[in-house]
């Protein structure tokens, strides 16, 4: 049994709706996905993703280190109040996310991973589930940037248009999706994330532990909620269910989800 080599090229356009004074680089990554066959022609259990990030940053000299930048959220740190406090953003982005980025830089220094795109490091260090040391920092750096961009001020509620239609198709109703996403986020034991993801032309809800994300599991992430305690403890303490509801009702950026879905569909449909 042989695996077809599938080259999927996708372009994700990240729209910068930055309301802060800070400048950050727009990255236009192109992502190629290939299935992996080993020497006996057998597919590896997981899609082996080779993700190449081509940064079109304005400062060419930082093209390599652009992958390890602490990008600010596309809104001011107090813009999500009262649903997510400024204090939470200051610690969560300013300390936790920053530490993942800084520690990743230190960790790859002098190794073969140094200077490689973030996505490459994530794939390499995921190592089919037998995690290598840099995985945690690399994946968490990626996850957090994805998380900030999954939210917006005055967000949340029900999506419309094609996204709603697809949610209704794959979950029977938005309410059923809401329930399933909620349950995944609430029952991820310990630290982790819940995701809306896209694979094989289907939307699905996925939960992952610690730093794991759908990229390494072979699907396109569309939306995430961080359920590590540091994400909600200052605002909600132990009340994770309240945090999840607040996220769903008041914070989700369906525009970001739609843009990601478009990119995912384009990538999938251009497969051989």
């Amino acid at each position, binding site marked *: 049994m042989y695996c077809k080599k599938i080259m999927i090229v996708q372009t994700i356009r990240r729209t910068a709706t930055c309301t802060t004074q800070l400048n950050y680089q727009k990255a236009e990554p192109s992502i190629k996905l290939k299935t992996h066959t080993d020497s006996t022609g057998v597919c590896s259990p997981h899609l082996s993703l080779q993700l190449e990030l081509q940064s079109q940053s304005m400062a060419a000299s930082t093209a390599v280190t652009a992958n390890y930048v602490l990008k600010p959220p596309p809104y001011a740190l107090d813009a999500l109040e009262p649903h997510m406090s400024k204090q939470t953003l200051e*610690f969560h982005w300013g*300390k*936790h996310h920053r*530490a993942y980025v800084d520690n990743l830089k230190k960790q790859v220094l002098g190794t073969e991973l140094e200077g490689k795109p973030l996505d490459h490091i994530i794939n390499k260090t995921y190592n089919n589930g037998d995690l290598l040391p840099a995985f*945690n920092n690399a994946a968490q750096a990626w996850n957090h940037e994805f998380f900030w961009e999954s939210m917006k001020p005055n967000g949340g509620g029900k999506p419309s248009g094609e996204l709603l239609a697809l949610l209704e198709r794959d979950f029977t109703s938005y309410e059923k999706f809401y329930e399933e996403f909620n349950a995944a986020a609430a029952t991820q*034991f*310990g*630290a*982790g994330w819940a995701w809306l993801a896209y694979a094989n032309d289907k939307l699905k809800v996925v939960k992952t*532990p*610690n*730093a794991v994300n759908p990229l390494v599991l072979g699907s396109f992430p569309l939306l995430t909620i961080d359920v*590590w*305690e*540091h994400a909600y*403890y*200052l605002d909600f*303490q*132990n009340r994770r269910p309240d945090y999840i509801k607040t996220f769903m009702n008041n914070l989700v950026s369906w525009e970001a989800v739609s843009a990601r879905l478009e990119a995912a569909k384009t990538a999938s449909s251009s497969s051989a």
Partner: protein
Amino acid sequence: MAIRCVASRKTLAGLKETSSRLIGFRGIQTFTLPDLPYDYGALEPAISGEIMQIHHQKHHQTYVTNYNNALEQLDQAVSKGDASAVVKLQSAIKFNGGGHVNHLIFWKNLAPVKEGGGEPPKGSLGSAIDTHFGSLEGLVKKMSAEGAAVQGSGWVWLGLDKELKKLVVDTTANQDPLVTKGGSLVPLVGIDVWEHAYYLQYKNVRPEYLKNVWKVINWKYASEIYEKECN
């Protein structure tokens, strides 16, 4: 082996952690949250009263509640002979039962300063620590480093390997009890490094929590366990 460990811990601790409730035909025993042997604020400034209250009344209580629910479901599944339901319940039992077991130990591992919290271990445990780690400072440094390095949620432990007759430092993920790392391991000191154990006070600075928690570690309890297990 695991059953013996649990039995001896319960005997030593003298905790009334079990209350009998007859459930179904088998009369399974369920659990209640025991009171702490000190006030919530008694461990300040090392651990804030706010954290102690939420940690005990919310987090530990939730483990107890969910453990009881899982046990009831398990009882029904076992009675019906539903093997796949039984297997499916194992993770809920491990998470919540482990959470209950670990926190029972943790509350005993802590004591207010005026009740001996932070006082270095004497006697045979003190000697064993010097033998295995060079000094108490050496042990503290090692446990703090390993606790800080736990990714996600978990615990750092000082344990006794009963078979090899030596002290070990190890970590477990989530609410896995120490015994999941080795059947002959007996926990002596466990430090919770889940973010809920320190976040409100120390925020992201877990190493600062680990530096300060030693000021309220109850070495008397650890010594009792050690001496009992060694005889």
